[in-house]
């Protein structure tokens, strides 16, 4: 089974060109930190309540990215809130996207192509080798958003990470996205981690707007 981080990064791969869709760069970076926290929660390593985050099991998961983050968290017991940890991992995140792409390549789901534009600019693409996992992720997202049933935990997490990354727009039509806005907002609010990711993104957006207005 793919990790939440891998599923979100796979969703960002354009199925026709192999290019990475990254409409909102900083939002995506925050959301990927949230995806790692969800992976650790699903592995029963972390638990959260309305504000705080606790490590409940320090044993490694066997996934290098998750274990690196778990180890980092274990080394900083002074940080206790979800918000503090999102900010901290955001600044220490390394290359979460790159690690997920390498793992997807190793699993034979995508391949890594490098080329040059005008002999100077490096271009990287990640064409799908096996499109079934991406189709599965897309279908789960569609089903979760378009139905009115009680969603699966993993699918709630997936929606709440895909939305701030701007990736739901590649799965739903504009009309579907608009019509199901209330459902999407409800799903994004169910988990503390995604609520805090959304708050962190909103705070970053406000800071950037403020900085831009000073420049102008």
């Amino acid at each position, binding site marked *: 089974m793919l990790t939440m981080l891998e599923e979100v990064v796979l969703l960002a791969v354009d199925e026709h060109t192999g290019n990475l869709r990254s409409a909102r760069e900083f939002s995506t970076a925050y959301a990927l930190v949230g995806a790692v926290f969800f992976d650790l929660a699903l592995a029963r390593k972390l638990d959260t309540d309305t504000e705080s985050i606790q490590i409940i099991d320090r044993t490694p998961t066997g996934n290098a990215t998750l274990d690196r983050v778990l180890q980092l968290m274990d080394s900083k017991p002074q940080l206790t809130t979800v918000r503090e940890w999102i900010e901290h991992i955001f600044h220490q995140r390394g290359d979460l996207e790159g690690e997920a792409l390498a793992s997807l390549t190793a699993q034979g789901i995508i391949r890594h192509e490098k080329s040059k534009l005008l002999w100077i600019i490096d271009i990287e693409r990640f064409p799908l080798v096996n499109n079934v996992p991406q189709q599965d992720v897309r279908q789960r997202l569609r089903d979760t958003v378009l139905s009115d*049933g009680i969603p699966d935990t993993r699918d709630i997490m997936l929606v709440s990470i895909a939305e701030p990354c701007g990736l739901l727009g590649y799965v739903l039509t504009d009309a579907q996205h608009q019509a199901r806005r209330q459902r999407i907002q409800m799903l994004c609010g*169910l988990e503390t981690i995604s609520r805090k990711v959304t708050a962190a993104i909103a705070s970053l957006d406000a800071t950037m707007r403020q900085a831009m207005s000073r420049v102008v």
Partner: protein
Amino acid sequence: MIQVTQEVRSGWQVLSVTGRADGECADALEAALKSAVETNPKVAADFSALDYISSAGLRAVLQAARAAEGRQTEFAVCSLSPPVKKVFDMSGLHHVLRIHGELPC
């Protein structure tokens, strides 16, 4: 730690949950609730003596509700203690689950 006791009242299987529903107990809570919804047509979870619920605990309740929906079992979450109600309200779970102020039986 959580304790789950069960009794039948007016056709409802009532599970009274006591203690803290956190990451360490979430599996036990989910198993108890799921087992009840798989074997009874009407299940009520009484959370009046539940002192604390974490995200893992909420997920356990949600998964049980999902199992109930799949089997067309009536599943009611009832009598939330104030700290637990606060968590349910913040998460918006009342949009997804049937939450009752009191037991329906």
